[in-house]
């Protein structure tokens, strides 16, 4: 029911698969570091989808430059957010090594 080439379909399927795996990891991941990795996997899945979108209908294989620029911007934004999250995690681990009852009452 779709007229995309089988190769693009394969990559679209992988992108959706990566999004799903990242989503599962983000929801379930027990350790915070694993949830940060899951976020990166979701990002990778979305960027792969955008690359595949950049490819449709171009015979000479030159991808859509606008999309490549968007992906580059998204990549740098994702890396800076991950770096900040890991810095926060490092501070959290250093601040309280063991488990501690959060002083505020947790949300409903």
């Amino acid at each position, binding site marked *: 029911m779709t007229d995309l080439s089988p190769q693009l379909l*394969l990559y679209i399927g*992988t992108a959706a698969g*990566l999004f799903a795996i990242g989503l599962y*990891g983000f929801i379930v991941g027990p350790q915070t570091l694993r949830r940060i*990795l899951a976020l990166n996997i979701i990002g990778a899945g979305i960027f792969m989808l955008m690359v595949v979108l950049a490819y449709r*209908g171009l015979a000479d294989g030159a991808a859509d430059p606008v999309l490549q620029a968007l992906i*580059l911007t998204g990549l740098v934004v994702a890396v800076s957010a991950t770096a900040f999250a890991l810095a926060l995690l490092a501070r959290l681990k250093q601040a309280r090594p063991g488990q501690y009852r959060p002083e505020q009452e947790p949300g409903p």
Partner: protein
Amino acid sequence: MSLLLFDATLCLLLLVLALASILSRQLVHGVILYIAFGLMMALAWARLATPDLALAEAAIGAGLTGALCFSALARQQLHLPVVLSWPQRLWPAVFVLLMLGGVLAALLQLPPTASPLVDVAQAELINSGVSHPVTAVLLNFRSWDTLLELVVLLLALLGALQVAPAAKATTSWPLSLSWSRLLAPMVILLAGYLLWAGASQPGGAFQAGALLAAGAVVLRLNHQLNWLRWSNFWIRLLIVSGVSAFVLAALLAMLLTTDNTDVIWLRWPPQLAGGFILLVELFATLAIALTLTLLVVGEPAAAEQAQQNSGGEAHD
């Protein structure tokens, strides 16, 4: 069609690596599998013939993110792997499958034609000052996005420096010391080439910055660049120069367009566009390199300062 087999194996490998990284028992295995996943992603970008992204993903995605994860892992106490009971995993799995179904149903409706913007961008490429379309879009057509993104990077550094604990002291071996010294000139040469090539071929500020950062991180882990810290005014000036060069260039461009056209923000004068973009990219590269380095290695602890002035002699 012969490449379909290669694509299939690559995609399968990506999915398996991602799944293994999420489901692995030990956290260490998760991180290592994630770094392998990052490298495979770089290969996937290369396979999809987007060299800009392959460079950026390899340097930033796999390299620096991997280094960050390992430094975070080093602080993590290796406690028992938490085992989740079956119902705890069932509901998220059902939700994820629903989302996946919805997204796939939507994606299959994508039209095969490319977006009209491609021809518009191609048409405007002549007076954009650079011949490589991606750099033209990044630094001319949608330069406001790039400026905000540089601010996001600066912001991540501000947040990380304000929060991060003191960096752990790293031991440096004479071999790694000499290797980092050998690597440094090559990295600088490559980064310069990448920056210069950005105007005509794949390359540009982000990839060059990431490469420089990788070299600086290796040097820093061997106690080499201890002057590279946020409290040093010149380093702060260089980091801030990435964004401020962009803004100053834009303001200068506004002054220069005093002829007939009305004054528009971020419009480079057509004939000088190439020069402006190169200037902005130069400062952006330096700023990105320093920012990423400080993000990965953080501030050198005071103890390291004493050891630094006695030269990085070997620790037995």
